[in-house]
Every structure is written in structure tokens, then in C-alpha cells.
């Protein structure tokens, strides 16, 4: 493995996770495992229409059903709550339709919540939903992007003249000149289908509102404890000290659990009205309409280049197919697509717009990758198409356009990339491909008449999201800093309190490794506490944007530095030596070169809390440091993915035979966890590239609401995967840590599209739509065959 360094301490060690034993034993506690005394269970009635006026809602029969405690409608919500907050306002003058947890007059997508019920259990709650009568007047539907953009399109919001939510353009240099002077111009329209994160545990919440103290206790299956507390405060017009959010074990997030939703507001209101805790679990069928959708974009792009393959300009438009209302993430992911459209390349002239368009579909929100897989599909397709057109080696074209390591910090269109060795990363990937004999496998397969291709995708990944001032500057109405508290107790054990939220990504272990290394204690002595707004320090945003290791870890490193000074002072006093002479290793504070003269961390802890008389004069008791991590700028990870695929020319079916990624996420804290993150991301994007699509009919009805229709990859769909690590330290993060949460996800669809083209190179097929379903690909193959004959 590349740059495999032998870890001398916990950082870099391939150790198994501390989280696991209880998960393995079935002793985890996920949201739905929590049952409070007197708890009610809720269910939500959802619109069967893509677009309709609500004429009348009659809930009287539902209220009378034995076992039903509350039925709440939009009119009642409006009296008790404020509109749902939208924190992503990065498009200047973006249209912001005011929407409450429940609508009163109109529904704009199938599955939009209309009425909620709380009853003794979910069975009765669902019985009650069947007793609710709603009279709708169906309205004309804008089911697709084109329908929504049409001259005479039905409008989703009467107050605006069209369905556009907003538009923003990123420019650099002189793009018109670049295109006039270009030797070659490529033009493509690429479509990325609607997909979603689909954690195996669906979203859920429990709200318990004590009407005497006004205290609202929330348990949320979420990626952001503090941000959700603040947004809940906004939605309920409630001071946040009256709200406590706890996050139990989370069964996967993938961005879907980052956004603020409506069900937690409804559970809170119904708890307030009934005086009972209320749980609402989104069931799987609901999840396909109520959970954030993502990805769907049409990207019309042009690339200008010289005849020797130097890219001189990109221009185009990202059409974002938004839903019937705005999620908290609004048009954020498509905006990021447009912002990073130049990818890892030096593109001097850029003119890329993002246009958000409301349609009668579920709202768009966060999903792992967050606009970057879509952008990568564009720039990595265009680079290979350019090479094809010019008859150049595709990776030579890539190499030619990379910034050199000494050009970092490298200012791209919108963001500045902190550090990188792109060409080296490409080489590492290519040497992996060579070592694994893919070329030979391809040649052998072709000799048998099989269509096997190799494809590449080089990506950049925005990580350590994010520096508050950067966030605010791009229009995010929230901070992004991280925060950790490191405490040594009276027995010398260490507890880390972090604002980051675990969701299966292994941060308890990773942060314990960082802390153990930074303090010089055994990892077994470190406990990480997370997911509670009362005990954990405030953190901006939520745990998304590949940030937990970088911002959570960075804060720990700094807090540990300060703590070590105190430990040394106490140790020096106890050992009657100077602090500078001490080393802290493996939980002992020892005189350098004389290990026999040492005290244990337990003795230090005892002095700090109990035998305070042993402290040096002037030293305050207790041992605890708090550190806010609000870096100056983001950290940009990157990687080069290669895939080997086989296409069945008769059926259009594609099988991924092998996968490899060379990547750089800065300091690798635990290679096993990093690889796990990559594998999971690859699976989601192989699903995205070949299987997964949220399909709407012409009538605006969603047709994929079960695991039988929305196809996520299973073990037989996955190739073996390999990750080669490089470590170029992040510039703005202590410890040099970048993020890795999205590394596996971003480039795979582009790489697969490139590989499919390669497998069919004799036909000159160009894949332009994701997912690449068998009928879609077969149609392309047939068309190419006809053209040839």
C-alpha cells in the first residue's frame, strides 16, 4: 500500500472500533428502541396528489377512534409554530416560499404531510389516518423540469411569475474569448437521476414536552444535535435553553439526517397538546417521499480547449430539479455542483450558472456527495471526451490540466484548494491498475468477445465543512465550527465531549485515537461522549461535509495541547522537576531519560480533583480544556477512482468487475475506518450509477416507494474494492486531517460512465444519463450499431 507508514501511536493504527461490541450483541439503542412511559406513537397522512388545493379537512372521525390522543392539522400548526427554517440561502434573492410543518391550503408533491395523529400505538395511529376525510381539488402538475419551465407551466407558487427558485452564476476570466479562440469545443447535456441516501434506519424522533417547566426533550435520529435544537427553537419560537436534543445510536445518515424536517415539529406540538411523549418513526414507504431526495440535475455544459488538450474554458448551466418546497438545504447541492464545476483542473475561464426550479416532486436535500458527484460526472466525462476527440491519452489530458503541488493553495473558481499532489495520486492509481493486471484482463476478455472497459474519475472533495466565515460568506445562515472538551477525571481517565454526531462512521474510535495520541494515554482510557446538547459543547452545522475527524479531531488536538501543559505542571510539582523535562507516554508522566521517576495519570487526576493540596501553588483544581475549531478555510481531499466494467451488448446490463481508488485525505487516523468509509461510499455510487432512481410518472406520481422498486446494491452487485492512501496534510487543520466521508462516492458514476464508453469504444457510445439502466444503455448501443451499419 502506498505511503504505508508504520504508526507509532494510535493515530494511523488499524485498530478495531470501540463502538462495536454492543452493536454486535444487539445491545445498541436506536431511536425506535426507546420507549418512554406513557409514550404515544404518531403517524402522518400524506398527500396522494402531486398538486392540489385542500378544500376541506375533516378529522372528527379520527379523533373519535378509541386510542387516539391527538390529530393535528395545518391550521393548528400555524397557530403554534413558525415557518420551517431554511439555512441554505446562498443564491442571492432566492425565492423563499414560506412553508409550515403542515400546509393549510395546498399540497405540492405526492407524500407531502397534511395531517398528523398521535395514538396509543402505531397500529391505531394508522387506523386513524384512514378515518380522515380530505377534499382536494387537483391542480395541473409540473411533473418534470421541462414541464416546470414551459411557457404556460402550471405555477407552484402564485406569487411568482414562473417556477424558478433562483439563479446564480459563477464567473472567472473571459469565457467568451476562450470559446472564440478555442481549437476544440465540446458540448454535452448530462442528466443525473433523482436518488437518495436511504439509511437502513429510517428517520425518527421522540418529543417529550413538559408543559409545567416548558422543557422540551427531544430524541432525534439526526446528524446534528445542536443545529437541530436551534432550528427547533426557531420553528417553535422557543428559547433554546428549553430544548434538549439527544441522539441515540444512529443507523446511518448519509446526509439524509442532516436536514431539519417537519416530523420533529409535529411530534413536539402533539406532545405539548397531549402532555405525553410522542414518537414518530418514518416507515420505509414514507421514507421514499418524506426523506430528502437528491441529485436530480440536468447539466448543459461546454468545454473549450487547445488542440493539445489544455482546457481553456467551461461554461454551462446546472438545472436543479427542486421539489414542491424547500428543505433546509434549499438549492445547496446543485449550487455546489456549479461552484466546483472546474474540479481539479486549472480552468482560467468559467461561466457556470445554477438555476433552481420548483417541480411537483419531493424536496431536494442533503445526500453524501452533495452536488459533487454531479459536478464530477461533468468534468470527468468532458476530460475523457476531449481526449477521445483529440486522440490523446485521457490521463495525459488530466495531468496536463492539474495544478502542480507548488501551485497550492490553488484558487479554483470559488474555493481555494489547500494542498494536493494530484499528478502523484493519478500515478498511484495507474500503478494500481497496472499491478492488478486490468489491461491484461481487458485484453483477454476482448479476445473472448466480451466488452470490458476501464474508466477513471479524478475528484476533489470539499471536507472539514466548515469554517463559519466561509459558510456565512456563501450565504449559509448558520455557523460551522467544531468544538470539543477534553476532561481528565479524578482517576486519570479521559473523557472527550464533542459536538460531532456519530452515525456509524466510527468517530468515537477515531476521536479516541486522536485524543490518546495527543495526550499520550492508552486509547482504552479515552471515552468519547457525543450527541447530547446538554452535555456536549455547541457545534455549528451538523456532522456532514466530511468534517467530524477534521473539526472534532482538530479541536481535540488543541485542547489536549493545553491540557498537557497543566499535566506537566502538576507532574513536575509531584516529581520535583521542571515541566520541560517531562514526557507523557502511555498514561504516565515521566522524567525524560529516567522512566523510573514517573507518576501515573491517575495520580495526576487525584491531585487535580481530590488531593488538591498536592497541586502546585496557583494551580486551579480540575483538568479540563475546551477548544473551538473554526478553521480559516476548508480542507480539500481528492482521489482517483478506477473501475473495470463489463457490458453485455445484448441486454445493456453493466457489471462492475473491479474497483480501485488512490486518494488523499490528509492524515489517516485509522486506515480500517477510512477504507470502510470508502467502501460504503462506493456502494452508494455504484447503486447510483447503475441501479438507483426515484422515478416519477407523467402524472407526477412517484413509482418507487419500496425496496423492490428503488434498488440499492446488495453484496452480489459489488466488486472487490481497494484503497491506496496518500497523506498530504491539510493546511488549516491541526494534525493535517482532511475528511474522507464522501471520497468513495464522488467519482464512481463518472468512472463507470467512462468505463462503459471504453468497453464500447468501437461503437463510439457516449453515456449521458445516470443511472445507466439496461434499457437506456441498450438503446444507445442499438443506435450506435445502426449508425455504423
Amino acid at each position, binding site marked *: 500500500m502506498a505511503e504505508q507508514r508504520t504508526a507509532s501511536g494510535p493515530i494511523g493504527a488499524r485498530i478495531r472500533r470501540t463502538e462495536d461490541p454492543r452493536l454486535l450483541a444487539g445491545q445498541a439503542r436506536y431511536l425506535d428502541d426507546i420507549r418512554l412511559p406513557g409514550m404515544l406513537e404518531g403517524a402522518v397522512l400524506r398527500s396522494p396528489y402531486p398538486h392540489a388545493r385542500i378544500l376541506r379537512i375533516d378529522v372528527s372521525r379520527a379523533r373519535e377512534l378509541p386510542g387516539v390522543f391527538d390529530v393535528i392539522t395545518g391550521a393548528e400548526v400555524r397557530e403554534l409554530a413558525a415557518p420551517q427554517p431554511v439555512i441554505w440561502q446562498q443564491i442571492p434573492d432566492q425565492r423563499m416560499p414560506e412553508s409550515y410543518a403542515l400546509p393549510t391550503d395546498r399540497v405540492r408533491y405526492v407524500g407531502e404531510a397534511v395531517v398528523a395523529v398521535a395514538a396509543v400505538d402505531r397500529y391505531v395511529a394508522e387506523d386513524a389516518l384512514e378515518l380522515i376525510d380530505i377534499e382536494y381539488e387537483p391542480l395541473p402538475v409540473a411533473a418534470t423540469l421541462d414541464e416546470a419551465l414551459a411557457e404556460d407551466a402550471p405555477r407552484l407558487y402564485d406569487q411568482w411569475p414562473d417556477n424558478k427558485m433562483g439563479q446564480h452564476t459563477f464567473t472567472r476570466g473571459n469565457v467568451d474569448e476562450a470559446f472564440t479562440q478555442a481549437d476544440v469545443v465540446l458540448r454535452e447535456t448530462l442528466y443525473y437521476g433523482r436518488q437518495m441516501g436511504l439509511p437502513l434506519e429510517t428517520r425518527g424522533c421522540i418529543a417529550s414536552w413538559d408543559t409545567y417547566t416548558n422543557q422540551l426533550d427531544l430524541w432525534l435520529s439526526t446528524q446534528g444535535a445542536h443545529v437541530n435544537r436551534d432550528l427547533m427553537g426557531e420553528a417553535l419560537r422557543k428559547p433554546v435553553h428549553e430544548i434538549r436534543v439527544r441522539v441515540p445510536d444512529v443507523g446511518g445518515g448519509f446526509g439524509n439526517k442532516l436536514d431539519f424536517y417537519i416530523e420533529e415539529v409535529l411530534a413536539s406540538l402533539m406532545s405539548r397538546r397531549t402532555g405525553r411523549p410522542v414518537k414518530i418513526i418514518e416507515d*420505509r414507504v414514507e421514507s421514499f417521499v418524506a426523506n430528502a431526495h437528491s441529485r436530480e440535475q440536468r447539466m448543459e455544459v461546454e468545454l473549450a480547449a487547445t488542440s493539445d488538450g489544455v482546457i481553456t474554458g467551461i461554461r454551462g448551466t446546472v438545472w436543479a430539479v427542486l421539489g414542491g418546497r424547500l428543505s433546509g438545504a434549499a438549492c445547496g447541492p446543485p449550487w455546489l455542483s456549479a461552484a466546483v464545476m472546474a474540479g481539479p483542473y486549472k480552468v482560467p475561464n468559467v461561466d457556470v450558472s445554477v438555476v433552481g426550479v420548483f417541480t411537483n416532486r419531493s424536496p431536494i436535500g442533503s445526500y453524501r456527495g452533495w452536488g459533487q458527484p454531479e459536478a464530477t460526472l461533468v468534468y470527468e466525462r468532458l476530460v475523457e471526451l476531449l481526449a477521445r476527440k483529440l486522440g490523446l491519452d485521457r490521463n495525459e489530458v488530466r495531468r496536463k490540466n492539474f495544478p502542480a503541488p507548488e501551485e497550492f493553495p490553488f484558487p479554483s473558481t470559488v474555493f481555494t484548494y489547500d494542498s494536493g499532489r494530484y499528478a502523484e495520486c493519478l500515478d498511484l492509481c495507474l500503478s494500481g491498475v497496472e499491478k492488478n493486471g486490468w489491461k491484461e484482463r481487458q485484453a483477454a476478455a476482448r479476445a473472448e468477445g466480451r466488452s470490458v472497459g476501464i474508466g477513471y474519475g479524478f475528484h476533489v472533495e470539499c471536507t472539514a465543512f466548515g469554517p463559519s466565515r466561509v459558510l456565512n460568506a456563501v450565504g449559509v445562515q448558520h455557523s460551522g465550527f467544531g468544538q470539543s472538551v477534553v476532561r481528565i477525571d479524578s482517576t486519570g481517565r479521559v473523557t472527550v465531549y464533542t459536538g460531532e454526531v456519530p452515525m456509524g462512521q466510527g468517530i468515537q474510535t477515531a476521536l479516541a485515537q486522536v485524543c490518546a495520541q495527543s495526550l499520550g494515554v492508552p486509547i482504552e482510557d479515552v471515552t468519547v461522549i457525543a450527541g447530547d446538547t446538554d452535555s456536549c459543547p455547541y457545534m455549528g452545522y451538523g456532522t456532514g461535509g466530511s468534517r467530524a475527524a477534521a473539526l472534532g479531531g482538530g479541536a481535540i488536538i488543541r485542547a489536549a495541547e493545553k491540557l498537557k501543559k497543566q499535566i506537566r505542571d502538576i507532574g513536575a510539582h509531584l516529581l520535583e522537576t521542571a515541566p520541560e523535562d517531562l514526557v507523557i507516554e502511555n498514561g504516565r508522566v515521566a522524567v525524560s531519560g529516567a522512566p523510573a521517576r514517573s507518576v501515573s495519570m491517575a495520580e495526576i487526576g487525584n491531585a487535580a480533583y481530590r488531593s488538591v493540596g498536592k497541586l502546585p501553588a496557583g494551580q486551579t483544581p480540575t483538568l479540563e480544556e475546551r477548544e473551538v475549531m473554526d478553521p480559516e478555510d476548508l480542507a480539500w481531499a481528492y482521489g482517483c477512482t478506477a473501475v473495470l466494467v463489463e457490458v453485455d451488448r445484448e441486454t445493456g446490463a453493466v457489471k462492475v468487475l473491479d474497483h480501485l481508488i488512490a486518494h488523499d485525505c490528509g492524515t489517516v487516523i485509522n486506515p480500517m475506518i477510512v477504507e470502510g468509509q470508502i467502501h460504503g461510499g462506493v456502494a452508494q455510487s455504484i447503486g447510483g450509477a447503475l441501479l438507483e432512481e426515484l422515478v416519477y410518472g407523467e402524472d407526477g406520481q412517484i413509482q418507487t416507494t419500496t425496496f423492490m422498486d428503488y434498488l440499492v446494491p446488495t453484496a452480489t452487485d459489488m466488486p472487490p474494492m481497494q484503497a491506496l492512501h496518500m497523506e498530504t496534510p491539510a493546511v488549516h487543520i491541526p494534525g493535517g486531517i482532511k475528511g474522507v466521508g464522501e471520497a468513495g462516492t464522488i467519482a464512481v458514476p463518472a468512472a463507470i460512465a467512462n468505463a462503459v464508453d471504453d468497453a464500447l469504444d468501437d461503437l463510439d457510445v457516449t453515456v449521458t444519463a445516470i443511472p445507466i439502466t439496461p434499457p437506456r444503455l441498450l438503446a444507445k448501443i442499438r443506435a450506435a450499431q445502426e449508425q455504423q451499419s
Partner: protein
Amino acid sequence: MKPASVEYHKATSIADAVDVLSSTEDEDAKVLAGGQSLVPMLSMRLARPSVLVDINGLTDLDYIRRDGDWLSIGALTRSRAVEKSAAVRDAAPLLSEAMGFVGHATIRNRGTIGGSVAHADPAAEAPAVLCALDAELVITGPAGARTVGANDFFHGFLTTAVGPDEMLTEIRVPVLPAGTGCAVEELARRHGDFAMVAVFAAVTVGDDGRCTDARLALAGTNPTPVRAREAEAVLVGSGLTAETIAQAAQAAAGVTNSANDIHAPAEYRRDMASVLTRRALRRAASDANVVV
């Protein structure tokens, strides 16, 4: 996703089950076998029977028996048992192979062959393979048992010859003659999914190398499983050559009649019927020791 209220009756005998089925007024009692299709439908409230007649206690419906030229399988036999049975592999290897495509191991542990057939999903393997094998299905009702040929059993999407007061009790499969080669070709989006298109082929080859019998059934292409009779006719009496196989494959595409759905447009299914028929016939021929 929680079932609506329902009564539950655990059947003590076939007669008892039929009794309950025929005594509900709205004729909406439902047999509960493996539950792999029915319970999800209950949870989604797509099925709302007033009473469930659980036949899982009827161990006398759980058997695989060879009686001379017939293989008899009780309706409650688990799909996994059919898949793994040596008697089935011996008498009707096409059925063994087909059952391996039904969902996943855990689904087959519990799901029954009778349930699969009675459920009549047009993309399911068991109905189509039984059509290919000219199986007979024994239906028991208040008036006793009657037998319906598999090719007359499936009336439409999720509808069969089984009346509301009846149940499927046995599946009878004629043993395939010696010299028969079999193959299943299935195109599914993922391993274990219902078929987009599946072809079940059995060809019997005489001593002279000519095809004496051919059975081809398709799943996923029509509202019910279908036999590709014209394609079979192309093969019977001729040698299994690349040409006849191609001709048969062409003919097989002609029987398809599907609507567009999220996984494929109709014409794709038609084309795949032809591609898979060709592949299935080639493999079946080679299984019968014919070199194409």
C-alpha cells in the same frame, strides 16, 4: 406500515381451512402460507382480509413425493426444500434451477411453492416454470379436489383459477423424459429480484439428434406466464442448430405483451425475450448433449 385489524384462524386440516374460507361472507378470507408476499401486503394495507387462514400447521401439505412418472409437491412445501430436493433435481431439474432464482435464501426458507403459484406474480419463477413443465395444480374446495393444468391456471395479474372458497393443495409435475436438457435464463436488475424477463427451456432430443419435444415458458413479459408455442413448434422435429434456435428466439419475442414499467419499456422486454430464449436454448441443448 402496520396491518389493519384482522381475525386469525389456524387451520387444523385442509377441510377446516376450506370451511373457514367458504364461510366468510365477503369471500375475503385469505390463506396465509409463507407470508413473504402476503404479510408485506397486509402491512402496506394493500391486502385487507377479514380473516387469515394460516395453513402453516398443515404438515400434510408439506411433502415432495415421486409416484412413477409424476412428482407431487404439497402446496406448503418451502421453496428452499424444493430447490434443494434430490427428488426434484432428478425428476425436473428445470424446477430446481428455477427455484434458485426465487428471492434469497431466507425468503425461500419460509416462502412456499404453493404461495408463489397462488400469488401469481407475472414475474415470478414458479408459475412460469410449472407452465413449461405442463404441471397440474390440485385445488381443493368445499366440493372436493379438482385439477387444473398450469397453462390454464393463471387468469391474469395476481389472479388464478383458485376460487375464494378454495385453496391450492398440490402441485403435480410430470417427470421429464430422458434426453431432456434444461436451462433457465433470467434477467433481473439484481440477483434475487423478480425477473424483468426469464425464460425456462426444456428440450428433449431423440436418438437421431432431432428435437422431439420443446417447452419454453416466459416470465415477466405478460400479465401471466406464457408458453412460446410458436417457438416450440419451430424446434420440434428439427435439429437444434444456431438457425433454428435463432428462429425460435424470434418467435418467442412475438408472444410478449407487457406494459412499460419503471424497470423497462415493453419493447425492451420483447427484445430480451428473444435474447434470453436464444441463450436458454443454447444451454438447454448443450445440457442435452447437443453441440450447437
